[in-house]
């Protein structure tokens, strides 16, 4: 890999230890994946933020990097293991909270904007078409590549930190035109309405394409929240972190030869596979990925005047919650007994074994509810999930 004079100096340690370590990571990845050079990134989204995933080892590494590392480009964080303010109400243990705060403090010391969300694109970290970025969270990566037309590989925690502290990433994979072409055409012969349908489509396409970039045809309309759900689901169920939708996503692509068909029965089958047949739940989670302000409006309309008897969390980025405060949705939602879980979600919070069954409208939420937390799952629309909450 060709390095500039400044990059060589960074690698030799003349910009400090954290930059040196960062360059070692970026150069090694560049060599492994055949990059010819490093390229500047516009923004970074760091993954590996929850103490539940990091453990003491991760925390030690962050503290080490924070000694002399400072971010060179705008950088936000993936969800943490708890609401950073409201963690007690959510039943998070005190010792966990202490460690989680140490993680956030280390990032703050590096100059990271410590907004913890899987939807950075809803809170100002929204790169435009063709921008090179280095993001870590898989649904955010997929949304950025597919819906925004920005360019990022699916980075791991340390490589996002390395990108933030240097402003650079190796140019390989999805940064290059030739690797962004679709390899399989997916003809969708089913009407799709709402994020349950789009989540189910993501599961069908992810499992059928297994890492091959798809071009989806036949989708007439998709709201941004629906694209958010599709992005999260497709990559969770083994799809590539980039998809194209004819007439909707910004990149112009040629049709590939290989073709698969998706029928209404495939969507229905996926929805049924994500349901464990439970008729009651003890936990409801909405906001995977984190809710938009429009979703909060819908929740307030459906939940207003009712009473949620179940533990009911709403995952959201803190700035969106603040908008909801101002618009009056928060008051209505909390009066009904639901709790805001800012900065976090059920995927990264320490919830294993705490509940028996979860209701969610997120296909990704089903996967992690089952596999990480050991919950039975109820997968239904927002209205149906709220029905379970007030049952």
């Amino acid at each position, binding site marked *: 890999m060709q390095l500039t004079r400044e990059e060589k100096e960074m690698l030799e340690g003349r910009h400090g230890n954290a930059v040196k*370590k960062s360059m*070692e*990571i970026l150069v*090694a*990845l560049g*060599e*492994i994946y055949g990059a010819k050079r490093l390229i500047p990134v516009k923004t970074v989204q760091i*993954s*590996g933020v929850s103490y539940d*995933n*990091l*453990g*003491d*080892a*991760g925390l*030690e*590494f962050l503290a080490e990097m924070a000694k002399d590392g400072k971010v060179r480009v705008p950088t936000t964080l993936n969800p943490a293991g708890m609401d950073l303010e409201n963690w007690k109400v959510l039943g998070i243990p005190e010792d966990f909270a202490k460690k989680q705060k140490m993680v956030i403090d280390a990032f703050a010391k590096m100059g990271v904007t410590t907004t913890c969300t899987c939807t950075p694109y809803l809170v100002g970290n929204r790169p435009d078409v063709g921008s090179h970025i280095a993001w870590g969270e898989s649904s955010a990566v997929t949304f950025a590549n597919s819906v925004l037309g920005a360019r990022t590989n699916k980075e*791991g*925690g*340390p*490589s996002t930190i390395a990108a933030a502290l240097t402003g650079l990433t190796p140019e390989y994979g999805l940064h290059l035109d030739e690797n962004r072409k679709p390899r399989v055409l997916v003809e969708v012969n089913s009407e799709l309405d709402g994020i349950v349908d789009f989540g189910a489509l993501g599961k069908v396409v992810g499992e059928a394409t297994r890492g091959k970039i798809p071009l989806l045809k036949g989708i007439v309309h998709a709201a941004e929240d629906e694209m958010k759900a599709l992005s999260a689901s497709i990559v969770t169920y083994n799809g590539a972190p980039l998809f194209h939708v004819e007439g909707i996503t910004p990149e112009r692509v040629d049709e590939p030869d290989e073709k698969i068909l998706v029928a209404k029965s495939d969507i229905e089958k996926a929805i049924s596979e994500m349901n464990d047949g439970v008729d009651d739940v003890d936990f409801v989670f909405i906001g995977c990925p984190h809710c938009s302000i429009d979703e909060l409006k819908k929740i307030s309309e459906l939940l207003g005047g009712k009473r949620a008897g179940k533990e009911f969390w709403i995952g959201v980025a803190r700035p969106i919650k603040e908008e909801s405060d101002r618009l009056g949705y928060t008051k209505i939602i909390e009066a009904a007994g639901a709790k805001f879980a800012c900065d976090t979600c059920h995927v990264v919070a320490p919830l294993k074994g705490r509940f028996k069954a979860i209701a969610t409208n997120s296909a990704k939420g089903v996967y992690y509810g089952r596999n990480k937390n050991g919950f039975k799952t109820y997968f239904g629309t927002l209205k149906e999930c709220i029905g379970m909450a007030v049952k």
Partner: protein
Amino acid sequence: MMELKGRKICAGKASGEAIVSSEGVSFYGGVDPDTGVVVEKGHPLEGKSIAGKVLVFPQGKGSTVGSYTMYRLAKNRKAPAAIINKECETIVAVGAIISGIPCVDRIDISRLKDGVNVEVDAEKGMVRVD
């Protein structure tokens, strides 16, 4: 003596007894970070310790959090002395770098057997077997 030439992933020299896995290794959830013992059910190395050994396997697998598990192993002095891969990927490469574990890849690992003494000079991409 046999010499194999591969590619540097993380510089450094080390030697030790080889522990060879025919299957990929997942550090996150697959290796106990406090003991260095492989705990993945049904794994060829299940129950064996990788601490202080030259760990030979085709490729890393599983969660990217595995890089941090390698760092934790190193802090606990339970990390492998060196790592030899057929083809290295992100998790192991990053884990080796942040933990300072010498690592080489593009080695014909079928020529390495359990228990032999292996010397790794990662800077040169060299593996020597006694």
